[in-house]
């Protein structure tokens, strides 16, 4: 492994930035970023993960330009046409068509919009709720802490999928409902993590030192606790996003996610299931899109954890 700047191979580093006490905030951020970039370039998994994920984001944003057909356009004369490389397929419909003759490729491209919307917004809501409640619980302690954690543990006690399925059945099928369901039901996880980290950081030596030199609550919150929360929360958020994309597809599979008129990977899987034996691509290809996305986010998440979690970094995993 080579360092970017030519430096003497041995001997103490006498440059001022080597002393952590003299290092200013900007320098720390810059060093963290350049360290991150270096790690990303070095880590094949992280690079692959980020690239896969960017492909999906690109597909979602530019879906109208990438899709070959209108994803809703039906053509019953072309029902369940095979993919291009099989007998009877054509490059006009590269991944074949579904039972209503709609282009599989275009539907998969458009489906990324549902998955990413649910993943991004769901995690954003869960993270926001979890961060606020977790900070309150960790800081206030006592009865407030008991009430918040009691509620969080209650949600965590019921099998997650069960809550999601029941709520989805009660509130009905719409994109907004799906986002809200995941955002709210996933919040307890973020509450628990935030609170745990707040308690850990508050009891640490450096916060004790900060209190000893007279730092107030606000300073401890903004200078010590929040910066230390970024790592664990972003890492969990990446994995939770991938999990939500799974769960959304699963809900679609049970016919409880977005309405069937919206192309989504889960809806496609569900619709293709009955033709599994005769025309397997209708049900299985949307699954590859899910795996592609989940693989990207998991590889990227693993890398992110290595970079953002200094405890792991020190161990030189």
């Amino acid at each position, binding site marked *: 492994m080579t360092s970017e700047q030519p430096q003497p191979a041995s001997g103490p580093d006498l440059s001022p930035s080597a002393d952590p006490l003299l290092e200013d905030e900007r320098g720390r951020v810059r060093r963290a970023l350049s360290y991150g970039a270096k790690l990303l370039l070095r880590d094949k998994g992280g690079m692959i993960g980020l690239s896969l994920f960017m492909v999906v984001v690109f597909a979602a944003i530019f879906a109208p330009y990438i899709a070959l057909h209108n994803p809703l356009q039906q053509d019953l004369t072309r029902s369940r046409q095979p993919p291009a490389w099989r007998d009877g397929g054509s490059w006009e419909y590269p991944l074949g068509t579904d039972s209503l003759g709609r282009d599989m490729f275009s539907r998969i491209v458009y489906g990324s919009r549902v998955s990413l919307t649910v993943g991004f917004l769901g995690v954003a809501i869960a993270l926001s709720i979890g961060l606020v409640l977790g900070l309150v619980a960790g800081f206030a302690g006592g009865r407030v802490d008991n009430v918040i954690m009691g509620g969080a543990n209650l949600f965590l006690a*019921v*099998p997650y999928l069960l809550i999601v399925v029941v709520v989805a059945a009660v509130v009905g099928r719409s994109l907004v409902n799906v986002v809200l369901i995941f955002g709210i039901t996933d919040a307890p996880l973020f509450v628990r993590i935030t609170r745990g980290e707040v308690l850990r950081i508050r009891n640490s030596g450096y916060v004790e030192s900060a209190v000893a030199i007279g730092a107030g609550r606000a300073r401890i919150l903004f200078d010590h606790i929040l910066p230390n929360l970024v790592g664990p929360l972003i890492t969990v958020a990446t994995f939770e996003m991938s999990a939500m994309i799974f769960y959304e597809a699963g809900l679609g599979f049970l016919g409880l996610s977005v309405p069937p008129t919206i192309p989504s990977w889960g809806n496609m899987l569900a619709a293709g299931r009955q033709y599994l034996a005769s025309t397997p691509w209708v049900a299985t290809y949307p699954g590859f899109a899910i795996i592609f996305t989940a693989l990207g986010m998991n590889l990227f998440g693993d890398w992110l954890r290595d970079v953002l979690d200094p405890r792991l970094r020190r*161990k030189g995993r």
Partner: protein
Amino acid sequence: MQRYLLSRAVQSVLLLLGVIVLVFFLVRLTGDPARLMAPREASAQDIAELRALMGYDRPLPVQFADFFSGAIRGDFGNSVHYRAPAMALVVTRLPATVELALSALLFAVLVGVPLGVIGGSNPGSIWDSLARGVGLIGQTVPNFWIALIFILVFSVNLGWLPSFGRGHWNSIVLPAVSLGLFPLGQIVRLMRSAVLEIRGEDYIRTAYSKGINDRRIYVAHVFRNAAIPLVSMLGVQFGYLLGGSIYIETIFAWPGLGRMIAESVAARDFPLVQAVAVFTSLVVVAMNLLTDVAYALIDPRIRYDK
């Protein structure tokens, strides 16, 4: 330790009472469960009759008191669809689901623990790559999708294994492996990183310096310490398995609780939904309690701490 376990037991009971409250309100999120339960073509009068029949027209506190006192006795009323006591239906479905969940867990442990340990003990080797690969597959392949692929390959194309039902001994293979894939990935990742971490601990170095041989170090120190996170993960995974069984049992027509959840939700059979929800939560909470007991037994630090 007795005080610790007692307080955990009290917590579990409180948690279950909370779950009953939660389940009561979940079904009433939109305000009118009768409208949800009625068929789409039902008239306003039909809905009003159904509301009165189910008791949803009574004041909310009365409904709650009635539901709560029934629930703690295990009485959730009659299933609308089956016209039989909901809890009894749930209990008859339980063995199939437990069989499936335990088989899935067994598969995950039998494959995952050795693979994770071998991978973690030989970082950079081909076993390590395999362990990391399996860990990644477990996290990125949805179980409902792999279930379809398994059916396609092993039932439709090869004709080796049945694709549905619970009759023959081999009918459990595909459902259990599909359901066990996610926990397998989790267990491999956990064991691999636990072994990697433990290998670098001071007490391992001390053990080596005392001249203790490899095998003893692994049995007495590495496995024992790696077992701690494993036990707590198994408790968590059991809850996942009950949830994941919703898809797997639906796909493989496995006559368990998961399929009952999917069916009762689709039929808007709320008494049955509530019974299943409370019952599965009971199982999960009990598993978590057992996990904590096992945890305290394995790890003396926990036993003597509290």
